[in-house]
């Protein structure tokens, strides 16, 4: 479904990605793990069209995404929950979700999306008229995911949904991620520093280190990999 080949991206003189290749099969959850500054966010931002690659190819269902503006990428059915949530703090929960459906003109489909998001995150419905800036961190993460789902994506990218959220809520959010994948059939590329959880819910994993993929395998196998265990799972 998504095929990234030899992707190279730099910020001015700093090269963040040195030829990253990865692929995501339809219907799966694939995780990209790695430490601070490994290039995970850079990878997602390049797929979304926020950054232009120096080299390499990004194919979505065989179509190249390189050079497309971010809103065109959304049009094709990809959606991106950015690092740090980036909810529109000055808008209400309802308005945030409406913006998620910005490209959707069919009122009935928008209503259906609202219902589906509220079924996944009932808390958002309770807070529908509240200004997003006053939500708790966990609620903002739900809103960020809900907003991304409003475009009715086929492919969802999430950048560290566990960041800065209480452990109990992290578990809930990861359950929702699995639910979104299973019941709505949305393919997911999940970026995480919480490798333990990410490898638990995903089918396949890639390990990124200083701009290069150093390992890739089935998630179950990666969890047993001694290198992954010592570096990312906090144990030996």
């Amino acid at each position, binding site marked *: 479904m998504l095929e990234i080949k030899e992707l190279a991206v730099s910020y001015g003189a700093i090269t963040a990605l040195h030829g990253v290749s990865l692929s995501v099969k339809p219907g799966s959850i694939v995780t990209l793990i790695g430490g601070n500054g490994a290039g995970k966010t850079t990878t997602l931002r390049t797929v979304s069209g926020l950054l232009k690659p120096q080299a390499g190819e990004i194919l979505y269902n065989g179509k190249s995404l390189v050079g497309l503006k971010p809103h065109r990428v959304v049009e094709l059915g990809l959606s991106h929950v*950015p690092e740090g949530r*980036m909810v*529109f703090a*000055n808008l209400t929960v309802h*308005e945030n979700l409406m913006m998620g459906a*910005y490209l959707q003109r069919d009122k009935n489909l928008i209503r259906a999306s609202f219902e589906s998001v509220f079924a996944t995150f009932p808390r958002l419905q309770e807070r529908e008229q509240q200004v997003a800036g006053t939500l708790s961190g966990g609620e903002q993460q739900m809103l960020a995911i809900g907003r991304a789902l409003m475009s009715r994506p086929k492919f969802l990218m999430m950048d560290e949904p566990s960041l800065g959220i209480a452990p109990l809520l992290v578990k809930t959010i990861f359950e929702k991620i699995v639910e979104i994948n299973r019941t709505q059939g949305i393919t997911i590329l999940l970026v995480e520093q919480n490798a333990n959880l990410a490898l638990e819910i995903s089918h396949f994993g890639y390990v990124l280190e200083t701009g290069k993929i150093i390992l890739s395998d089935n998630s179950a196998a990666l969890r047993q990999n001694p290198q992954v265990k010592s570096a990312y799972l906090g144990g030996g």
Partner: protein
Amino acid sequence: MEFLQQLINGLSLGAIYALIALGYTMVYGVLRFINFAHSDVFMVGAFAGFYLGRVLPAASFGGGLLVLFGAMVICAVLGVVIEKLAYRPLRGRSTLTVLITAIGVSLLLQNAGQLIFGANPKSFPKLFPQHNFTFGGMVLSSDQIAVFVVTIAILLGLHYIVMKTRIGTAMRALSFNPTAASLVGINNDMVISFTFALGSALAAAGGILYAINYPSIDPLMGTLPGLKAFVAAVLGGIGNIPGAALGGVLLGLIETLVVAMGGSTYRDAVAFAVLILILLVRPSGLLGKLQAEKV
């Protein structure tokens, strides 16, 4: 009575400042820079009204509104063209680069204005039927009434657009976080064009309302009201839409009251005193939120 009379005069001047200030603040909201060419779009609005007033049935209520609407459309188009040609190629460059370009566009419009319209002041035609209403010594001219009615109608319309429509919500989203806006599928360039159209249309309305009350116009007429409206936007909190309206009205009132109290020599200095004061006391403006600004 004298005080009430001054209040009315102040409010009608303030309404015009408010209309111009809204354009500064909306553009600041989406692009984080001060569009110094805005005051010259105001001037073009007045001239558009001048020429349309000759061909359209003026001095009738409907004719006046038609002229107003025509000038707003012309300036909306001008605003979009300026953004596309001058500012869009500089997207991602430093704010200073864009600011200098804005000053360049401003000079271009002023000089093109002198070339096309001539440098001599022109007397502005009567767009609306003339009548003075007197209430116990207080005089309210039909042109002042036009200022109030048109300004209130425009502010209500703007409120509706910004708060209730899809594109208005997108403007607010973009002004909060352009990256997140593009990730939900908003075409940021399109929304920025729309913002310029809206702001420029308001400037045109301001230009015409200014011209009917101060009946001579010239290609450099935008400078002073433009600077004052900029102060009004800062006073209200740059980037804050209700703040710009409030700042405009307050500044108009303050200026008029200072003049009424015998300080007419200081008419134009008032705005700058207000600017210095607000920057010292409350740099974020009356309704603005404090935030660190990277320039």
